[in-house]
């Protein structure tokens, strides 16, 4: 079970409280986690990454186990602690408000 923490506005949009739990195949990658989130919550399509290019939106960042994974390629496998559910995968709205 993968644990995902969404930013406040996306939790509201998806109408979820707290962490999102995802059942998915191992090993989880950046791409497969996002695919699974969007399949479970279609309203989030286009809010984390572009509809067409699937590129991360500029002011959205990805973190796990205190590492910034935002610039890693989509096929990057997530840390073992995330795969086992010991640590959450964090989707964060960047501090870019000025």
């Amino acid at each position, binding site marked *: 079970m993968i644990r995902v923490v969404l930013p406040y506005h996306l939790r509201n949009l998806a109408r979820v409280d707290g962490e999102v739990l995802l059942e998915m195949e191992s090993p989880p990658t950046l791409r497969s986690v996002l695919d699974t989130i*969007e399949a479970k919550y*279609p309203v989030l*399509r286009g809010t984390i990454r572009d509809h067409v290019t699937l590129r991360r939106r500029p002011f959205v960042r990805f973190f796990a186990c205190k590492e910034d994974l935002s610039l890693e390629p989509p096929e990057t496998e997530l840390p073992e602690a995330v795969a086992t559910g010991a640590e959450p995968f964090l989707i964060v709205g960047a501090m870019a408000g000025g």
Partner: protein
Amino acid sequence: MSKVRLLVGTKKGAFIITSDGKRKEWKVNGPLFAGWEIYHVKGSPVEPKRIYASQTSGWFGQIIQRSDDGGKTWNTPGGGPTASPDGMPKGESNKFVYEGEIGKHLWYDGTQHPWEFKRVWHLEPSLTDPDTVYAGVEDAAIFKTTNGGKTWQELAGLRSAKGHLWQPGAGGMAVHTIILDRKNPKRIFVAISAAGAFRSDDDGKSWKPVNRGLKSQYELPDPDTEVGHCVHRIAMHPSRPDVLFMQKHWDVLRTDNGGEQWREVSGNLPTDFGFPIDVHAHEPETIYVVPIKSDSEHFPPEGKLRVYRSKSGGNEWEALTKGLPQKDCYVNVLRDAMAVDSLEPCGVYFGTTGGQVYASANSGNSWNPVVRDLPSVLSVEVQTLR
């Protein structure tokens, strides 16, 4: 008993404000979609409980919201777990993808720059079908849904109207105005900053610039320039679709032949710079503007918030000040932030960048604040409910 419902979009959420036909006591509901920029909220003229909202964010992009119960509850059309033929969920209500080759427009440095979708500025529901809506977007293009907002398709003919010569203004390059013609269902007008006004006579398939008579002597020294004009807003009375009024970057203008030729009607305005323009619901020659000091100083002249009304279709203007702040007022009124209801007498409404929404229940003769401390107001629409 008649009622009115104001649909207010702000930089930090939407507000729905209601009153009875007297328009003296108001109930404020909101913020809806708190924390998001709500560029526009507008109801269907044929099914007033159907309301569409454009919700946008620099972080998370564009969302389209829809209510089918007059704003009590909202949903993202197409956002549910509907499986498409390939097994993937759709969730395409916020998918605005330019048709065909994306193409390029003029950039600030004179080079060509690819179109990039940023947000929906304006939603214009069909006059006959609650599931059909037109969306004016930045970078400038028009999209259409025929399924209540589940999916959107670009009417790409608009960008064929010399789109390579359009250039963003300081506020971006967006289709901010869409006007549908009640008498001719195939006719649509749009306005774009900084490209101009455009007209389609075939339901959006093909478009032509309708900017003859607009003058911008420094930016566009050639008086025959077809595109590149910074049109801030156009307005039409539904009974006279060939007559349109325009607030341009500078100048207030009118056309009497569907945009084929415009003429200036700024007359005795203290300044002819501004953003909104609107037409009285029952008097097609009565129009309203809010003069702003200049393109460099976006606030009312002398710190006095004044709506100007012309009862002669322009040229002769009177200041409407009763109930509006007449000192130390330095707010702006944005292009989509003025609306009129269809009660008798006509109600006029506008919102400011300072978060006030003002209402007049007597065609502008006097004003009262409906609410004073909202976030900066981006848009105001009104529904007259009978």
